[in-house]
């Protein structure tokens, strides 16, 4: 009978194919916490006195992120605030919003729920009704970033923390590589800082944790989470890449780790070789930092015959 590699408990909840390790519930939870804290220290993601804005959807990744960051808050190292973006996806988003609210109430954290409708006078469902749309994820990514950056300034946040996990990061590396999007590759990493002082640095403490282990963590800790797929996700290129990586991982269980660590090794060289000289100006419509006269959010909104609600 297999037992926990660390303590000998016969009740194991995971057999890690990548290392051969078998772990019981307590040792697994501890291993995830230690690994995330190690990433935070190694990459210097947090500094004492930081006010960290957590992008909290109520899904497993952001709830795990909040759970771990709260241990830093408990020790008075950082303060935490949170924002939940309501994209306007009927039959999907409200459950996540409710769960996010439950967590921030439980932890007594400052929180905003900001909707596409309130910010842009249009929901994602309404955008997707337009046959000329650019694809759900394109709008969602750009609009969410706009809302989160604004929320960070409203809260006076010094960092923005997102729940990107190892699967997300590996998918993004492959997607950008396959699309030849070197500019996007140079912007990736555990901590990304913008030239514009109006954008708080973004950190990704979960980037070395596989998505399945994040799911196991919330179940092992009995954390309330929204476990449903986005209704529009099947349309995305990311979804296709995710499938390829999952299939490869069956026979090559370390492939996501090697993709990420390989990328981390070439990241600096890539950045130096592809320096961009963008000068941030203000978007002439919404006033957000933009390297063009009109930012991407306002460009998309123009196409939709809408504008930012200021």
């Amino acid at each position, binding site marked *: 009978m*297999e037992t926990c590699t660390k303590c000998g408990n016969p*009740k*194991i*909840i*995971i*057999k890690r194919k990548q290392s051969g390790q*078998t772990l019981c*519930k307590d040792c697994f939870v501890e291993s995830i916490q230690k690994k995330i804290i190690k990433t935070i220290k190694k990459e210097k993601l947090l500094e004492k006195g930081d006010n960290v804005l957590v992008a909290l959807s109520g899904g*497993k990744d952001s709830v795990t992120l909040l759970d771990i960051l709260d241990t830093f808050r408990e020790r008075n190292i950082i303060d935490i605030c949170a924002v939940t973006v309501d994209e306007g996806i009927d039959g999907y988003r409200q459950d996540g919003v409710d769960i996010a609210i439950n967590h921030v109430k439980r932890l007594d954290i400052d929180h905003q729920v900001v909707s596409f409708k309130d910010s842009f006078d249009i929901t994602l469902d309404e955008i997707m009704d337009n046959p000329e749309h650019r694809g759900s*994820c394109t709008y969602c990514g750009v609009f969410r970033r706009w809302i989160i950056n604004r929320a960070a300034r409203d809260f006076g946040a010094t960092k923005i923390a997102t729940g990107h996990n190892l*699967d997300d990061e590996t998918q993004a590396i492959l997607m950008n590589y396959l699309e030849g999007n070197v500019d996007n590759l140079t912007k990736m990493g555990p901590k990304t800082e913008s030239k514009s002082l109006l954008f708080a640095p973004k950190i990704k403490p979960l980037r070395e944790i596989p*998505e*399945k282990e994040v*799911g*196991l963590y*919330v*179940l*092992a800790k009995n954390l309330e989470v929204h*476990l*449903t*797929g*986005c209704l*529009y*996700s*099947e349309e*995305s290129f*990311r*979804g296709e890449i*995710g*499938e390829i990586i*999952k299939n490869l*991982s*069956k026979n090559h269980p370390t492939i996501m780790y090697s993709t990420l660590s390989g990328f981390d090794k070439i990241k600096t060289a890539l950045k130096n070789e592809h320096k961009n000289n963008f000068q941030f100006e203000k978007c002439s419509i919404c006033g957000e930092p933009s390297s063009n006269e009109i930012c991407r959010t306002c460009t998309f909104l123009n196409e939709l015959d809408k504008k930012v609600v200021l």
Partner: protein
Amino acid sequence: MNFTLIFNDKKEIKSLNKDTSIKNVLDEMELSSEIIIAKKNGDIVIEDEKIENGDEIHLIQIIYGG
């Protein structure tokens, strides 16, 4: 011999063959163990776990596309 299977809010009684594991059930349902976590009688278990007469198996999908 049988067991109770819970998946996607549906509960059903399934007949049980000797030496059936969670992995066998996942294979039969064409579900990848990469996206599912299983609980047996309320406890999280690995996919090699054998199912016994009267067990309640809850399959929880934790990864969705996108």
